[in-house]
């Protein structure tokens, strides 16, 4: 277990250690991921980390790669401490890291070539150099024919090869591969290792660290580090480990190495032979079952028959059509062609009766994470309409049978995977189905729990006669089935008992037999001229890597080539993402319409009616004065107070007038008269406008009357107030609002897009490429920002065009001034988004966070509604600092006030400073490692 026990292998070219890990520990919150781990890797060796999911393999590899920060202990790679940022930068070009998850560090919308090209640019290769290297890599991996296919459309095996190409583009000395072959078909897996072998013979000094969950694969490695729950159980060559434990296979060696309390529950799975006499009854039958998604054929004329009480397995790689076939059988997906029968009945999604006879467990152990185990069981029991009095008994029975008593009232997400899997099975069995469909029920579960699960399955099949249809990508599970179908690329290659398949091909193991069937299938495909599929056979020269002259890595502080590499990739991705692209272009236009019309303060076409008790020409003249204006529309006269009340209540009238009897007579005699006015106050803003219009019209009528009648001197004005509405003489809302809405939109949308662009990478995992490459923070940030600045400028042009044409808002000042101000402003807005992204972990948080953090200061404190000079306290400070304030001044100045650069210079200075300050702040806060 100590470093000494790690003896250099005979293959090693020299025994210099390249990786040293001392007493390393790692915690995620309360969870201990690694607990005092010591490991050493020498140059030129292939070292494997083995153990089930969640034991700390990936954490250890990410520490060694420098993607994750060291918490405790010491990690030395290539003669330097990985806690030292300078050393990490210096050695980054010599380390290559391929994280777990098929194609996790790849960009799915970018083509194969574009992906490798991006990495080449990051490592500073020139154009010809890059093209030569990419050409070589594509040749030797057999990816050349697919150079222009988007990475997201590749099969699992091809994605792994592409990941390898991206890792190898810069000739690393240490290659770190985290579960590179999980979920890949056996032929691709064999080819992958062949490829690794070729690379090693081409570059004998290179050390490779691999994590794997396939124990049989590990037998080929030089050294193995056996891990469980954050600890190293043993280190040694495969031969040594087998000898020490006296086990026949790596899997049993692993179980033997486990601590006593974990091993205790383990029993070797024994499968009693099936009683053949029940044969003849068919549980599932599929005939030419086919599913197409667009042009893609996911399942291609599949035929099989499963008999009652049989354990039937589907064996194949990820994405070969296992899940789709199962979904068609359960009625979740309609078949494009062909037919399937359950218990002799054609599959019909509307047939609720057949569903009661089937139990289904989907890939992700789908349980309601917000319900406890018991509540999950009860809900399913009710939905299957078990008699209410039977439910508690049945639920209790399941809890006892699956040993869930201690965890029945815990939420599923707090359970270890193995228990969650048992709970999931219990849920699928609550209604005692005759047929159980299990989609990869054991993925990620450790070997002991897996064997326990199989014990249960065997019991169900043999004792209770339940038919079990199970899919898996593990050979040793497939071997336990009564019969299996080998699946590849949507087709069933062959179906038979596992032993019979091995015998028929004269193979040593099921794995070999599968590979031979796959090879046959590929031969046939080639013969029939069909399009080559996932497994391109590598034909390239084995030493193609050898003639690369290692190029001195560029380590300048700021490299424009790396920056443009990020910019180029971001632009390509954005162009291929319909939702973000739509938001970027259409979003602002839609919101501009909404706000332009929605925030309108114009109040026109107000309804009014009159209760005229005078009925003289004077009173009618008064009413006409109102009705003739563009603000008011007259409705039919009011008959009495009840009528007035009713019509106001129904919102028919905004204003009601009552002209008293004798109005004209009293007025002529110069006697004081009073007109009754009722304003509908349900909507205060409208009411206020109505009131001031009514007062204005009244004054206007009086002054008109004044010139005709003798009482004018009495009410004459003492002084005149001449009001000049400047910049917007017609006082139109749109003229006032549009130049203010543009700054709001040019803040909100660019900031949200940039915030998303960084957080998206965090969520999808490709941020690792930034962690482990020599790129600096500023290169990464500015590279990301550039495409969005360009997009925001395009948006700006669109909005200005819309403002001038559709909304009819004149642009009176200098367009060049406005465009310059906009460029500075959107640089700041995108930088605000980047700054926000450093705090956010999920995309949904980034969306709402950015919305709140940009809309609030922009609308409340930036002079869009109330001028900044009216604000006080914090609001005033925010207002003075926030870039929107200054851009609103520029926008209004240019649109409405006919200003140009010389008038607005004072507003440009803060904008000029904003983007650099924000970027510097972001760079200081952005982490170059996962913490």
């Amino acid at each position, binding site marked *: 277990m100590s470093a000494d026990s790690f003896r250099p292998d005979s293959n090693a070219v020299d025994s210099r250690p390249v990786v040293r890990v001392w007493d390393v520990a790692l915690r995620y919150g309360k969870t201990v991921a690694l607990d005092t781990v010591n490991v050493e890797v020498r140059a030129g060796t292939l070292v494997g980390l083995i153990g089930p999911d969640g034991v700390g393999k990936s954490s250890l590899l990410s520490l060694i790669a420098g993607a994750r920060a060291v918490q405790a202990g010491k990690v030395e790679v290539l003669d330097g401490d990985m806690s030292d940022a300078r050393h990490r930068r210096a050695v980054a070009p010599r380390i290559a890291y391929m994280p777990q998850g098929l194609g996790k560090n790849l960009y799915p919308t970018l083509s194969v070539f574009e992906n490798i090209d991006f990495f080449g640019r990051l490592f500073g290769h020139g154009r010809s150099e890059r093209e030569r290297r990419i050409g070589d890599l594509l040749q030797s991996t057999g990816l050349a024919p697919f150079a222009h296919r988007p990475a997201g459309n590749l099969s699992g095996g091809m994605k792994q090869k592409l990941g390898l190409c991206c890792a190898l583009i810069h000739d690393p000395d240490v290659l770190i591969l985290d579960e590179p072959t999980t979920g890949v078909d056996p032929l691709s897996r064999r080819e992958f290792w062949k490829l690794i072998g070729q690379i090693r013979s081409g570059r004998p000094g290179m050390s490779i660290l691999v994590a794997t969950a396939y124990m049989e694969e590990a037998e080929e490695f030089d050294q193995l580090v056996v891990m469980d729950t954050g600890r190293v159980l043993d280190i040694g060559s495969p031969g040594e480990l087998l000898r020490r434990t006296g086990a026949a296979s790596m899997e049993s060696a692993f179980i033997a190495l486990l601590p006593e309390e974990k091993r205790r529950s383990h029993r070797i799975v024994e499968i009693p032979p099936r009683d053949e006499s029940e044969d003849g009854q068919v549980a599932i039958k599929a005939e030419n079952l086919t599913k197409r998604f667009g042009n893609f054929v996911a399942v291609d004329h599949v035929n099989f028959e499963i008999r009652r009480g049989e354990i039937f397995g589907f064996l194949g790689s990820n994405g070969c059509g296992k899940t789709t076939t199962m979904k068609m059988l*359960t009625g979740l*997906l309609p078949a494009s062609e062909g037919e399937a029968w359950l218990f002799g009945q054609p599959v019909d999604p*509307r047939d*609720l009766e057949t*569903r*009661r006879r089937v139990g289904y467990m*989907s890939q*992700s152990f*789908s349980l*309601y*994470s917000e*319900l406890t185990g018991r*509540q999950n069981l009860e*809900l*399913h029991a009710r*939905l*299957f309409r078990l008699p209410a009095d039977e439910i508690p008994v049945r639920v209790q029975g399941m809890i006892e049978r699956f040993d869930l008593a201690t965890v029945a009232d815990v939420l599923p997400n707090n359970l270890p995977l193995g228990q969650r899997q048992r709970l999931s099975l219990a849920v699928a069995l609550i209604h005692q189905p005759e047929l159980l469909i299990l989609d990869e029920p054991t993925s990620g579960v450790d070997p002991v729990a897996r064997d326990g699960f199989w014990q249960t399955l065997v019991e169900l099949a043999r004792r209770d006669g339940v038919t079990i249809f199970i899919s898996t990508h593990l050979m040793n599970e497939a071997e336990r089935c009564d019969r299996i179908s080998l699946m590849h690329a949507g087709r069933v290659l062959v179906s038979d008992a596992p032993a019979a398949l091995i015998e028929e091909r004269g193979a040593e193991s099921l794995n070999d037999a599968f590979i031979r069937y796959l090879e046959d299938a590929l031969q046939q495909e080639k013969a029939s001229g069909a399009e080559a599929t996932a497994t391109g056979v590598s034909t390239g020269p084995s030493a193609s890597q050898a003639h690369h002259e290692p190029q001195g890595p560029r380590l300048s502080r700021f490299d424009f080539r790396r920056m443009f590499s990020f910019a180029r990739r971001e632009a390509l991705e954005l162009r291929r993402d319909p*939702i973000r692209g739509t*938001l970027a272009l259409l979003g602002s236009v839609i919101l501009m319409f909404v706000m332009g019309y*929605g925030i*309108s*303060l114009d109040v026109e076409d107000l309804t009014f009616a009159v209760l005229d008790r005078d009925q003289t020409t004077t009173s009618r003249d008064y009413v006409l004065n109102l009705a003739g204006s563009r603000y008011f529309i007259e409705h039919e006269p009011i008959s009495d107070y009840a009528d007035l009340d009713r019509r106001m*209540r129904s*919102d028919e009238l905004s204003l009601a007038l009552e002209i008293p009897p004798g109005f004209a007579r009293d007025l002529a005699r110069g006697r*004081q*008269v*009073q007109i009754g006015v*009722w*304003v509908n*106050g*349900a909507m*205060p*803003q*409208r*009411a*206020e406008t109505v*009131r*001031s219009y009514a007062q204005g019209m009244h004054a206007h009528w*009086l002054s008109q009357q004044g010139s005709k009648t003798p*009482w004018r001197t009495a009410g004459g*004005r*003492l*002084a005149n107030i*001449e009001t000049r*509405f*400047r910049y*917007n003489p017609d*006082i139109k809302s749109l003229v006032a609002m549009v130049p203010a809405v543009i700054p709001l939109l040019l803040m909100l949308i660019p900031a949200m897009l940039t915030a998303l662009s960084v957080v998206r990478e965090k969520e999808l995992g490709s941020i690792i490429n930034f962690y482990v490459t020599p790129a600096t923070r500023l290169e990464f940030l500015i590279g990301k920002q550039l495409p969005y600045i360009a997009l925001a400028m395009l948006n700006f042009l669109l909005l200005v065009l819309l403002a001038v044409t559709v909304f009819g808002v004149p642009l009176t000042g200098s367009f060049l001034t406005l465009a310059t101000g906009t460029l500075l402003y959107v640089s700041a807005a995108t930088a605000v988004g980047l700054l926000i992204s450093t705090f956010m972990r*999920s*995309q949904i948080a980034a*969306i709402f966070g950015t*919305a709140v953090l940009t809309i609030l200061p922009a609308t409340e404190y930036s002079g869009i*509604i*109330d*001028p900044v000079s*009216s604000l*006080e306290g914090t609001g005033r400070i925010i207002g003075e600092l926030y870039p929107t304030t200054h851009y*609103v001044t520029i926008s*209004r100045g240019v649109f409405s*006030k006919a200003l140009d650069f010389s008038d607005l210079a004072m507003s440009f200075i803060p904008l000029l400073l904003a983007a650099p300050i924000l970027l510097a702040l972001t760079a200081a806060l952005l982490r170059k490692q996962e913490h």
Partner: protein
Amino acid sequence: MRAANIFHLGIKELRSLWRDPIMLVLIVYAFTLSIYTRATAIPETLNKAPIAIVDEDRSPLSARIASAFYPPYFLPPELITQAAMDARMDAGLDTFALVIPPEFQSDLLAERRPAIQLNVDATRMSQAFVGSGYIQTIVTDEVRTFAQRYRDAAVLPVDLALRVRFNPTLNKSWFAAVMQVINNITMLSIVLTGAALIREREHGTVEHLLVMPVTPFEIMTSKVWAIALVVLVASSISLTAVVQGMLAVPLQGSLALFLAGTALHLFATTSMGIFLGTLVRSMPQFGLLLMLILLPLQMLSGATTPRESMPEIVQQVMLAAPNTHFVMLAQAILYRSAGLDVVWPQFVALALIGTVQFGLALSRFRRTIGESA
């Protein structure tokens, strides 16, 4: 038996919501703090408007006028020169600039009807229109009081007896509080149903339901009733405790009638939430879509600005949105104490829109749900 499924699934929905702290916080926030702050923070139309005075008269009267402007309606006026006025208005420092000409006081007393010039920055709609009215009144009053010391100034012969119905003091928080409740009812019902559906899809539990003897209709109806119930209960508590209680807004009409209308509205919006949930593949996409859907729904429904001020075409289009009818209904019942005899057209419209929405959502839900996982 179907009703039992809908019931049990709905209970599951309620339990899920109960265990989702973020959504609970959102609900509580939306129906308490959000309404309270919105109602109390709403500025009066005229709030500390910046005004500058160019005083070329320098008389007791002009000093008297300048001292008549003070907070909260106006900031204390800046005394500036004619030359500075244009630059300050261009830079957006002042909304109003009042120019008092030389010899203003003496001209006034000599009954020569002198003119004061009021410059208004009309790009600032929120202050320009109402503010200039206030300034006119203030200046006229000051001038009249001043003049009255020297001679009789008669009152106008025709008086307007202005009465504002339903909200006599035009208290804006009355309006804002209820409209905020309405906006939050719409927002929450869409967000909660959409998120509930997407969560089930992301966890793969919806396909689990579909292999059981449960129909898509039952799954969807269970979400609709459960979330509508939560929002209905929360909004009625909010209306009584926060709006009537803490904010002391007098609500006029029948609360029961309003809640009946709310239930109909929720039928439409929860269905809309499901519909949107089927359009997207992940929560981030849902978030982006919400931005483009919620904002127009709220801003153009008549809850922020009057429908009359929108272009005819926008008014027509918005009649297809449930919000528009819900806002009309809420204003009629809660402010003007209208009864069913007045608001029945809105009830009919909401029921129709809800049925169409539900149908659309159900057909999309059926079509996409299998392929989504």
